[in-house]
């Protein structure tokens, strides 16, 4: 199925996880929607997150984001209304790439990939300096071509598992990942939640590690240093998204929040 020769992107991602590990941390992976709050304002916001990040995740805004909760959905609507679409998002990543050596992964639903054309999309992503793709609505057995095309262009791929995943699904998804495996901490969509939601995560990760040849990151619902620390205790990476969008929307200090969550990623 997937070509498993490590790609340039995979090597860079794995090195970032390894670096964090040697420092006694889980990798910190903040997320931001490209073009949020505006196309002009995004680079500064992304720079702020990058300063603390081991890996930056940039979301391509999409009109119908099925895996996302209201926070990221509204951020997408705002970015789209401001004119940031698929090609613009990759151009924004290229701008960031010119200023940082840290790995950047792009989160995208599959429709933008199909609309641009899978080969053309991968070419554009490679040219923009993207290291990997996160594909929230593409179970790996749905399209065997995307992962191969990504590999051809030096990009790593990340698929997701959830608390509802059966052992057979965990094995299938874990083996298909070349960048890192993304474990969704809750049965649900993205968004910060009340209370710690770690309940099912340790068992899910134990199962995932039997099959994954890549690091395992956990996301959905991590919102502060305390929840980050819980996740960092069991995972190789911690993904935080909605909390930063909410902070930016409310005019809070994103820099301070990112610093505090990163500090929470210690083991």
């Amino acid at each position, binding site marked *: 199925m997937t070509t498993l020769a490590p790609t340039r992107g995979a090597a860079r991602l794995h090195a970032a996880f390894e670096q964090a590990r040697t420092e006694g941390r889980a990798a910190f992976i903040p997320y931001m929607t490209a073009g949020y709050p505006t196309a002009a304002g995004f680079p500064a916001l992304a720079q702020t997150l990058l300063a603390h990040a081991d890996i930056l995740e940039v979301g391509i805004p999409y*009109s119908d984001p*099925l895996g996302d909760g209201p926070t990221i959905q509204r951020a997408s609507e705002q970015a*789209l209304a401001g004119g940031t679409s698929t090609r613009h998002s990759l151009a924004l990543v290229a701008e960031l790439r010119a200023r940082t050596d840290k790995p950047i992964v792009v989160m995208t*639903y599959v429709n933008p990939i*199909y609309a641009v054309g899978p080969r053309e999309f991968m070419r554009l992503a490679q040219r923009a300096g993207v290291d990997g793709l996160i594909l929230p*609505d593409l179970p790996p057995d749905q399209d065997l071509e995307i992962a191969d095309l990504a590999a051809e262009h030096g990009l790593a791929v990340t698929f997701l598992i959830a608390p*509802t*995943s059966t052992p057979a699904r965990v094995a299938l998804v874990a083996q298909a990942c070349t960048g890192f495996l993304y474990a969704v901490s809750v049965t649900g969509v993205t968004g910060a939640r009340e209370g710690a939601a770690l309940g099912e995560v340790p068992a899910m990760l134990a199962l995932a590690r039997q099959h994954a040849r890549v690091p395992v990151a956990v996301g959905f619902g991590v919102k502060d240093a305390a929840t980050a620390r819980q996740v960092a205790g069991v995972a190789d990476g911690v993904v935080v998204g909605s909390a930063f969008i909410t902070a930016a929307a409310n005019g809070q200090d994103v820099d301070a929040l990112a610093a505090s969550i990163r500090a929470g990623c210690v083991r």
Partner: protein
Amino acid sequence: MPLTLPTYPQPDARGRFGRFGGRYVPETLIPALDELETAYAAAKTDPAFLGELDRLLREFVGRPSGLYLAQRLTEHAGGARIYLKREDQNYTGAHKINNCLAQALLAVRMGKKRVIAETGAGQHGVASATAAALLGLSCVVYMGAEDIRRQALNVFRMKLLGAEVREVTSGTATLKDATNEAIRDWVTNVRDTFYILGSVVGPHPYPAMVRDFQSVIGEELKVQHQALEGRPAPDAIVACVGGGSNAIGIFAPFAYLPEEERPLLIGTEAAGEGVDSGRHAASVAGGRIGVLHGAMMYLLNDDEGQIVPPHSVSAGLDYPGIGPEHCLYAQTGAAQYVPVTDAQALDALQLLTRLEGIIPALESAHAIYHAVELARTMRPDQTVVVNLSGRGDKDVAEVMRLLSLQDPVGETPGQLLSPSLLSEVHA
């Protein structure tokens, strides 16, 4: 004769109709879709399930629905005999109830106590709320704010039936967004919730399962057409297409016949203000292949993959995609898809009402319009069957609003029709 559910050569084992269909959903849902597929496969051949469904379709819904020769409409068109397959006679007013009752029975069988649904025109929401009331399930219906305005009567019916109606204001605030919201609810509550999907869209197995449940329409037609015309298949079948469930229900039992035995199958897509206007919901005529709500299909989306907001005068056709099986039919030529505009549908609604005393749903009026055009080109010994997917009660207030915009001083009813049609009806 006990009810049996038909078996078709599509989709393949991976849930694909050719390249269309599939399961493009968050991984969280995959186990639930597997579970549903297994439960449905078992129910499909279980006499207890089929017996109960058969009883409800007859005693609760009022099936079989009639096959009615529309004599005056036939005369008006001056060609082939036009029959109406009267899904408007069903309890709750449309074909949607066939599928809802079946899925709700499946929910009970699977031990789920909570059902959710999305709705555009409100007919699927009403049918879901009805099935939930009948079977003692709790029910949440997602509906776009724009559709809540257009279909106030159906909103009240759902509430009266005990369902909770959740207003969706994101995106275009219509069916597409209500579907997004229902899927998000399902992702969150998948362990104890059954999602009653309202059309032949969504991830596998929904397009196949909903088709099987709606095939009762086409299967009845064979028997009725045999009795009235001495042969099971009409020469042509016309049905409106939003997601495409009423159309697939009447097409599928004929679509896999050899070409020489197959009726001309025509789906009417909502062309809104015209396919070139950019304000339409015609996914085959004006879309390109993409992925929405878990399936690959013809889709209104721009060249960077953002969904283009659809438009139709009828809330039930106001959807940017079309079911994957229709996409395959369109590609292979098993069926044809033609655009019909808002104005043409409004005219056809009034035409059928004046000539036959039947007020059709705005959705069904799209099919009526094209059936008349088609019958004109055919011989009097031929037959055209229109799937009259629903009745117009739900649309009367909206039609009144639209016609008074056209005719603000409120002329006599005889002047509501557009001038060309008016002269034809009274000729």
